[in-house]
């Protein structure tokens, strides 16, 4: 049990930090531009596939730098030539544009790399057990992932607190209506923010790819969870996104590791009852309901705290 | 007789900033009451408080004797208070006709009906046509509201506000941004349409205020410093001081 707790906590924090790499960018973009970027998880997927391809061509370490930059460029292109032209049609049109993009990116990725998982491996240098907890070897690569995401987290904090763009972003987070008064270079700030957000998502993809499965449906799987995270944390709140990322990361990881069901706790139901929704619920394991837990959380938070954990804004 | 609007010791703070402090206001039934004051005095906030757009931090607001502070805007509207907005706030993609007709529907008792054809409700049709006629927009009835000229949108704004037949009408700077001729037309319109109703108006144009109002309240820093007839206000030293030499008459 102690082993499970230690391992799951590590994995949960790791997953949570990965989620935050994505949700932080999404939150900042939403706060500044009012656009909820549906394609954000698709940039994460692009990161993983670019990382995979570049690793095959030039090795993992160059890929780690180049792939996120490429994704950032794609993101800036989307902002400059897509969103900026759609802006005049309103936020719904912008959301729909990113929705269409998410759909198209998934199709393009599966067209180029196929629908089955690609063989994106952990680099040999990091392919060893970092330490052993009880009897489980904890892979060094996961420690590496954790280190990268924590470094990025700190870098983000410093950027927000110490740089001019960071101050603008902060101002935009607290006073979204202010963004219009940023002056003539507001377009460049938007493009930059969108590019950096996309690049962060891409980086998450590059480092998560070898550890998780790199496949053309990875964006469709992660995207909805990401939206749960930012609605749960409160739209437009970075601390909220951080807490929600960690919370959902931990919940998901622990749920997957637990095999208990109502049947295993209270004993099986009388078999004469026959199959019914009750028996389904009675026999389902916590691991099996792990995929729906984030959405259950979403429903709960909407009922009891419609603004999200730390949200202050209506929409 | 109970007052149409009675505001008792209302306070409103946003965070640590107190916008409205100890606000007391009484508007008698049938009275035309103007609220004036320098920019940032809290005139629009007062409107928002009375119409339920925002809730007071403390204090009490009554409409025709009934406590309405804490109620939602549509609940207050159903009790007979209707307001306009300083920034034009119409239904942009709908035609002028549809704009006014939507404002008539609740008052004529059709509510959320999904079994009636709106086009074949005679009293709705008649009332909408009457109001369009009143605001001189009959010839523009099929134009989407978003395509109207500014002055026309302001007139439509007034039309939507009075369409429901509310007994208390609140107009937030109805002539803002209008030319002199347009203003005159709008004032005549307001005078005619609010006949027999209670009117509360926020206005910067002093000629409008003194020409239209039976009583005037002066709001400074979220507090009413004087309330009285136009003559009393004109002669009030505190008002003169607050306007710091600004021309009151």
């Amino acid at each position, binding site marked *: 049990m102690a082993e499970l707790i230690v391992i799951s906590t590590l994995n949960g924090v790791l997953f949570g930090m990965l989620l935050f790499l994505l949700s932080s960018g999404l939150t900042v973009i*939403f706060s500044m531009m009012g656009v909820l970027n549906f394609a954000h998880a698709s940039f994460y997927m692009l990161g993983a596939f670019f990382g995979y391809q570049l690793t095959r061509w030039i090795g993992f370490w160059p890929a780690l730098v180049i792939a996120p930059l490429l994704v950032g460029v794609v993101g800036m292109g989307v902002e400059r030539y897509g969103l900026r032209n759609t802006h005049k049609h309103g936020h719904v049109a912008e959301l729909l544009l990113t929705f269409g993009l998410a759909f198209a990116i998934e199709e393009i990725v599966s067209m180029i790399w196929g629908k089955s998982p690609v063989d994106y491996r952990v680099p040999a240098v990091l392919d060893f057990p970092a330490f052993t907890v009880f009897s489980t070897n904890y892979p060094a690569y996961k420690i590496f992932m954790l280190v990268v995401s924590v470094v990025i987290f700190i870098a983000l904090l410093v950027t927000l607190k110490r740089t001019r763009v960071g101050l603008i972003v902060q101002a935009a987070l607290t006073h979204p209506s202010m963004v219009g008064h940023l002056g003539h270079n507001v377009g460049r700030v938007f493009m930059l923010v969108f590019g950096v957000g996309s690049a962060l998502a891409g980086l998450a993809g590059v480092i998560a790819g070898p550890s998780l499965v790199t496949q053309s449906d990875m964006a469709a799987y992660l995207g909805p969870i990401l*939206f749960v995270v930012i609605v749960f944390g409160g739209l437009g709140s970075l601390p909220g996104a951080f807490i929600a990322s960690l919370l959902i990361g931990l919940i998901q990881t622990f749920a997957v590791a637990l095999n208990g069901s109502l049947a295993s706790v209270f004993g099986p139901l009388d078999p004469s009852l026959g199959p019914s929704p009750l028996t389904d*619920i009675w026999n389902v394991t916590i691991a099996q309901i792990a995929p729906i837990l984030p959405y259950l959380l979403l429903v709960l938070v909407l009922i009891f705290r419609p603004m999200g954990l730390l949200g202050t804004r209506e929409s | 007789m109970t007052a149409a609007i009675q505001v008792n010791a209302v306070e409103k703070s946003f965070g640590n900033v107190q916008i409205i402090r100890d606000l007391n206001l009484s508007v008698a039934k049938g009275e035309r009451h103007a609220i004036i004051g320098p920019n940032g005095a809290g005139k629009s906030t007062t409107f928002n408080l009375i119409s339920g757009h925002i809730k007071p931090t403390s204090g009490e607001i009554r409409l025709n004797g009934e406590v309405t502070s804490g109620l939602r805007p549509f609940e207050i509207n159903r009790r007979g208070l209707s307001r306009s907005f300083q920034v034009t706030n119409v239904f942009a993609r709908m035609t002028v006709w549809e704009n006014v007709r939507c404002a008539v529907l609740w008052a004529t008792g059709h509510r959320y009906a*999904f079994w009636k054809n709106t086009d074949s409700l005679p009293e709705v049709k008649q009332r909408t046509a009457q109001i369009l006629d009143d605001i001189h927009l009959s010839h*523009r009835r099929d134009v989407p509201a978003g395509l109207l000229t500014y002055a026309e949108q302001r007139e439509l704004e007034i039309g939507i506000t009075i369409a429901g037949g509310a007994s208390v009408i609140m107009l937030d700077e109805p002539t803002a941004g209008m030319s002199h001729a347009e203003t005159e037309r709008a004032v005549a319109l307001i005078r005619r349409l609010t006949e027999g109703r209670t009117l509360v108006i926020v206005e910067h144009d002093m000629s409008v205020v003194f020409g239209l109002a039976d009583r005037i309240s002066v709001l400074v820093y979220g507090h009413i410093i004087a309330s009285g007839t136009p003559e009393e206000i004109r002669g009030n030293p505190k008002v003169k001081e607050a306007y710091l030499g600004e021309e009151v008459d």
Partner: protein
Amino acid sequence: MTNAPTPSLAAAKQESGGALGFYGVWLLAAIALVVLPLIFSSGGSLTSFSLIGIAIIFALSYNILLGQTGLLSFGHAVQYGLGGFLAVHVMNAVASHNWPIPLPVIPLVGGIGGMAFALLVGWVMTKRAGTVFAMISLGIGELVASSSLILRSVFGGESGITTDRTSLMPLFGWTFGPQIQVYYLIAFWVLVSAIAMYALTRTPLGRICNAVRDNPERVEFIGYDPHVVRYLAYMFAGFFAGIAGGLTAINFEIANSAYLGAMQSGFVLFSTFIGGTAYFFGPILGAILVTYLQLGLTNVTSVWQLYFGVIFIGIVMFAPGGIAGILMKHRPLIRAGTLGTVIPSYLVAAIPTLAFALGIILAIETVARFSGGDPINLLGIPFVATAPTTWAAAAVLVVGGFLIARITWRRVAEAWDRAATVARDRGYLA
């Protein structure tokens, strides 16, 4: 903008012709639905018509949310799918108990299923509009789709639940075994649902839905609670989506978890938006086009879904009014008789635009078939995906087409402005 006296004249004409035109359109639609299978009687076209009919109801129901109330839902398939599941369960129950309920009533059961779910979750969901509603609809969609795989006794797991539509009591000798009988069942429901949904837009609720779409804040000051309006709209949308789901269950004699999924929600969004949300008939056009493309493209290319994405992005960026919006833009020009002055510029613009589109198609197919597959056949010209000449052709078409198209479309805009000015001067709004 001066106050031209003539628009009211045009409006009066419109109104007097309204009632006749109104019933005429529905009568024509009814005749078309009856006659269609007599003209195109092959099994394949009957299947296509059935699917298109269902897609029309589904898309119209979606537009109650998106076009009429301004609610962007990413989970509309939930009500559709639940309607389908309820229909299948009721059909099986009716068959096993020999209840005297004929098949044509079953879609109504689907509708009730869709509406019941909306009744249950709608109040919480519609508390807020805009982006938050969009995200919640996505979350609820995922929740229901994932839950359906857990509740195997209700949803039948991966394989779904089957039924036999002929096991219900026959009606006037119709067993609904042959596809033609199913087609007429669907056609009947298409007509009834479309009329009902059109009527809904004319009711006080329908009008207030539009007001909520345009300006929910102001609605509160004319006596309405926008939350209640959104909730009611959500329930009606759920009802008609459920009818579409029930018809699908009858058509395929199965309901499975894919009915509830994100893919299905995405396609109804595509159909509705491509068709155009601002006009009632927009989603009908969209449903016909998207279903037709879906059926046609699967045989031609393996990446047909990508084409939907590309078309959708194109519509969002360049014609957010959809097909209906493009068509209706021309109405004042037709009325004023100035359309003729625009057509030449359209014809000129069509050539480079077509070249650009062909270039995109060639590029997509080149990538798709690079590592194997049949040679590309574009307008009868064969291309080999691995040949550099093909890449060059694609590049020339895309880049050249785009650059020239941009110039010609500017010409179109100029011609358009002139024609619209004339139309305005003649008293037709443009």
